[in-house]
């Protein structure tokens, strides 16, 4: 499990594409949630 966690950590991302999106209560496509650091903690 240590190996798997480390492996995920080093996969940096440059795309926010979602192959398939399903909702807990409502499906549909999306890119995950995102917020601006300054608005949250600035």
């Amino acid at each position, binding site marked *: 499990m240590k190996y798997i966690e480390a492996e995920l950590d080093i*996969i940096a991302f440059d795309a926010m594409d979602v*192959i398939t999106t399903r909702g*807990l*209560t409502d499906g549909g496509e999306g890119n995950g*949630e*995102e917020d601006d650091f300054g608005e949250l903690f600035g």
Partner: protein
Amino acid sequence: MVKYTYYNADTDEELAGAPSAIGNYKVEVYADGGSNYYSRTQEATYSILNPIDENGMADVEVFKDNDVIPEAEGKTFAGWFTDSTCTTPYTGDSGEAYAKFVDNKVLTVKSQISNGTTKNSAKTSIRFINSLDSLNYKNVGLKVTFNGNTIDKPFTKVHSSLIANGKKVDPSVFSKESHYLGAYTIKNIPNSAFYSKFTVTPYYTTQDGTVVEGTPNTFTIANMIK
């Protein structure tokens, strides 16, 4: 005369009376001998155990009334259900139901930073990812603490997979029981915050309304830069 005094065995806090909630306890029994016998104090510890039977059923009221979340070794509670396969949620506050549990690794959180981030980058983004075994929850979310401030980010959309740097991230990186991923990105993090900690606690709300928190994890962007 015999006097019973009850304590929480974990904190040594004295209780008002005999406890009924699940937990570890100590009882102190004082027997007053009067004029003919010695007085004596005796202690004993005991536990009130998780009252879930071998079939996974329990009296829901015992847990709801005591505000206790069911526990199992290496597992996380995932809601009450009417059937043993845990497909139909049970939303009553009393009566018997099946307690569903998932692998502890399901309700955990991992992170990624933007590709190409260096310790000299002016800004970056961090993406927190958690997992779920199914869609059978009211919501899922993350509590993110940074410099003593905590934000609560609930969401209702989850994903069967994500793309990271051209590679597919499958839910199974969390647990073989994981089938969906939640993703939350915080953008435009200034370089001055690269050495500060983000502490992230994943949670979900079961269909019966129980909020279950998973294992917190702490991330520092500087430590994630390779």
